[in-house]
């Protein structure tokens, strides 16, 4: 039932082989060998077409919409893919780079006294230890102006590492760094620290299970203590599960089936 390890990300080709089998009759076996991008575009068109509430069987040049969804006698297979990647405008991606990192200036720099304002010279001597946001440190690091150290919670000898090893689910990662995973990925990539990757993975694996259980069971009762431990990424995951479960419950309970358009309720202005 839970098949997970089929290969849809072949390393070299860049092509994704996706076998979509949604129905059980003779057309129902579609075999595509096209890129995932194409499929996602197609699915978007399809979803929009459905959203427009047109009661028409929509046919595309490539294949018929009926093959893909609604009309079926039995359940097909459902395939979940991680299609969405971070975009340029992703606000969380931007915020994750705000995190402060310890850095050491390798060269004397003028006009940056803001980091280390001992006197009026408005400059920073080589070898000064400063804290700067990651987005700045990144650029300076590439230009060899500073060297970056990992923040204390990623340090190999730090207490956090042991805590995560012991019981990741109860470590307060949010107070350490609200974007623990995103930021961890970024800094590990930049300075080539190999121990951070496994640390993040172990932490997320353990914590994922907690989030999973909490998101789908505690329907509307929010567990505030638990929530305050979660990082931003985990909170989003929790909310995704929570809101879809809540939306389903609401639908099942019933309520107004037909909603009045906002235009309809208004009274016409009396004509004078």
């Amino acid at each position, binding site marked *: *039932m839970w098949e*997970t390890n089929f290969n849809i990300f072949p390393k070299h080709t860049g092509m994704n082989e996706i076998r979509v089998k949604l129905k059980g009759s003779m057309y129902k076996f579609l075999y595509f060998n096209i890129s995932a991008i194409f499929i996602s575009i197609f699915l978007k068109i399809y979803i929009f077409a459905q959203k427009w509430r047109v009661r028409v069987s929509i046919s595309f040049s490539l294949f018929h919409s009926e093959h893909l969804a609604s009309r079926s006698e039995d359940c097909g297979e*459902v395939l979940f893919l*991680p299609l969405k990647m971070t975009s340029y405008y992703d606000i969380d991606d931007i915020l994750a780079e705000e995190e402060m990192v310890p850095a050491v200036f390798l060269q004397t720099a003028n006009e940056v006294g803001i980091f280390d304002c001992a006197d009026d010279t408005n400059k920073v001597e080589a070898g000064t230890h400063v804290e700067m946001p990651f987005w700045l440190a990144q650029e300076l690091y590439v230009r060899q102006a500073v060297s970056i150290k990992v923040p204390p919670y990623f340090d190999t000898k730090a207490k956090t590492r042991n805590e995560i090893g012991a019981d990741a689910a109860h470590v307060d990662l949010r107070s350490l760094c609200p974007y623990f995973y995103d930021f961890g990925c970024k800094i590990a990539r930049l300075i080539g620290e190999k121990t951070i990757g496994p640390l993040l993975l172990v932490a997320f*694996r353990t914590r994922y299970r907690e989030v*999973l259980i909490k998101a789908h069971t505690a329907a509307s009762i929010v567990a505030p203590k638990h929530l305050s431990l979660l990082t931003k990424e985990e909170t989003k995951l929790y909310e995704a599960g929570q809101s879809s479960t809540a939306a389903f419950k609401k639908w099942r309970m019933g309520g107004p089936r037909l909603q009045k358009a906002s235009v309809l309720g208004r009274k016409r202005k009396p004509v004078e």
Partner: protein
Amino acid sequence: MASQSDNSVAFSAAELEFLAEDEMIEIVPNMRMEPLNLISGDFGPFRPQIAAQVPLWLAVALKKRGKCTIRPPEWMSIEKLTQVLEAERDSEKFQLLPFHYVEISRLLFDHAREDIPDIYMVRSLIEDIKDVRFHKIGTGLEIISKEVTYALRLKNLSAMEANIVRPFVTKALQTFHKLNTMEAIPESGSIPNRQRQAVNQRDKRVLKGR
């Protein structure tokens, strides 16, 4: 495109209900009517006491006007549902049920209560089946954390169930994918290379002697 939220990936429950209304169902009309020629097909002719196949939305519309009785689908009987419930409890796998069983059953319970025999029993059976399946999904999703997972394939999952877990699962898969690739390829080489290049460029920037 940037402003598009994640919500565009998932349907709302009402949208799924709309899609489910295209499923065919049998009705017994009590009026006489010419065949209806719709874009999605021709339905009818309708004769009193002669069963006809129509989409669910049409059935519900006729039912509301008292023009027909709806015959509950085959799977919606106490025997069938009891079987499914037992099998669902015993086995790991999801049992075969209509893709839109949640939506169809709700539509019928709302609009055609008197046409379903033993409605209370049927309703509680479907509720039980749904609960068992949801619990199975919940426990099953733990597998993502146990091994390296790139995608998840589920057999016989219904539309509503898939829709409920979709935002959560895709987000979780995305994060795992990111962290897994991090672990597999520690890109230690990339940045220092860039740095070295920068250094080299600077070294090379010597004016040519004339």
